[in-house]
């Protein structure tokens, strides 16, 4: 049986890679979600932007990059810097902060494959069709709910 059988969450929004991070943040807060898929204009899946990526964009670049500061305790609460960076999200493109190398589920992926892949990530996984177009997002909870139902719980 493939994951086609699971009623997975239909994404209401698929952001374009040129959208800014502020827009992504607003949508995440509004929809109470940690992840948003990113697609081309024709709906081809590109990657996922997460709240993690937004937090990464907020910390000072001096700590974000390889070889940067590993200890920021001496900076203090840093709220002033963080809010400044938050306003700067408008100038950052989601395409640059998106995670693109994640595993992707096919519409006809077997259920066991989906369980395996989702057990190895901390995020829901995108589901794409044979044409590479975005079909939806499968979350760990949706998958478990389906399995629980199958087990007659």
């Amino acid at each position: 049986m493939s994951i086609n059988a699971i009623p997975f969450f239909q994404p209401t929004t698929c952001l374009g890679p040129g959208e800014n991070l502020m827009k992504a943040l607003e949508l995440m807060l509004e929809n109470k979600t940690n992840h948003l898929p990113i697609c081309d204009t024709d709906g081809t899946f590109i990657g996922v932007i997460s709240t993690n990526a937004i937090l990464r964009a907020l910390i000072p670049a001096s700590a974000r990059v390889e070889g940067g500061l590993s200890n920021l305790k001496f900076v203090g609460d840093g709220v002033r810097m963080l809010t400044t960076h938050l306003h700067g999200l408008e100038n950052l493109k989601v395409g640059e902060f998106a995670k693109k190398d994640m595993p992707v589920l096919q519409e006809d992926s077997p259920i066991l494959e989906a369980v395996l892949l989702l057990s190895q990530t901390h995020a829901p996984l995108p589901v794409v069709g044979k044409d590479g177009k975005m079909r939806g997002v499968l979350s760990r909870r949706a998958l478990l709910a389906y399995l629980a139902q199958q087990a007659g719980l």
Partner: protein
Amino acid sequence: MHGALHTASQVVFGLSPLLVSLSIFVLTYAIIVTEKINRSIVALLGAGLMIFSGVLNQTEAFAGLDLNTIGLLTGMMVIVAITQKSGVFQYVAVVAAKLVRADPWGLLVMLAVVTAVFSALLDNVTTVLLIAPVALLITDALKLNPYPYLFSVIFASNIGGAATLIGDPPNIMIGSAAKLGFNDFLWNMAPVAVGVFVLTLIPFYLIWGRKLYAAPEDRAQVMAFNEREAITDARLLKQSLFVISLVILGFVLAHNIAQEPATIAMFGAALLLLLRVFGKGAEEQTHDVHHTYGEVEWVTIFFFLGLFVLVAGVEKAGVLGILAREMVDFTGGDLHTAAFVILWVSAVASALLDNIPFVATMIPVIQNMAPVFGAENLNTLWWSLAMGACLGGNGSLVGASANLVVAGFAERAGQPIRFLPFLLMAFPLMLASIVVSNAYLWLRYL
């Protein structure tokens, strides 16, 4: 680095040793310049060819290795590898920023001073590797363009490195070959380094300093930094500072205690390793020591080893003797002219190429000039070479490893330092520093 080279070369196919050694040497340097293959591999392959072709035998190649340079470099690398974990660089940078109440121009000067002092006492690459992120963080908090700060960190590291025996690898090599100690460098190089440093701040002020502004609220944020939190390991910090002080004291007293710098640095490294692992179990000791040795820059060490053999090859074949005679002829046997030519050629060469192979080659060339200028006058030429090679590194982004380290970090952090804009500003500033060095040479030694 020569002296044990007596046997006649038995070069393959009866070819001229002069031609074979020069071909290997030029080819190796040419490949190093392209940067297509890691320089340490190229140097070791070239060294191997020098031996296989019969220019040198293995004994002669080993005699060419300057183990005093290798020992001093390795010892200091071990000490730095341990010290950098303590957070002392970040601590000092934050204290310096707060001393000037996070004033933008004051901050630029202070970060430059901190970088210069650390670069003079430790290696330049580690210094900028640890100072550049702090500079970026503080300018971030102050909403300032980090470019002037990163630029001045680069300049300060090369100028500071010029000041002491241990500040920059060319100085280590020169000191070892010419038997010049820590105090000789401090007495002869530090004054010019301080002069160049202060004078370089003037254009920095005119170009950037007077226009820098930070809002009081942003400065207050930096003033609220708690430098004590930057110290990640207080015990390690005390151990490191203790050993570094001891090692520097050793360098200062080297002449009195009749010891060479390599012995002092290696002993310091061993002492710091001992303090580090004291009281730990065997497994943890192995892990710590293994990790520390792993942080020694082996690429640099193997590069030096290969270069020493290459240079020993061309030296034995007589290439460097000819080069020395040509330079003497060119300068008309005049010490003034020779000192100035060495200074300027070293500066321009070091701005565009790696200064380490350049200095490795120039050392025997200058030694070969002793009969003409007299051994007592050679020191002037050594200082010319040291000033040119160290300060020349400021001329372009590829002039010194520290420059590339800062540029690489800035690029990753989204604040790229471009080759051409850097060159257009750095090269004239570098030339100005060489004008100052030239005047210093003239006034003090000629």
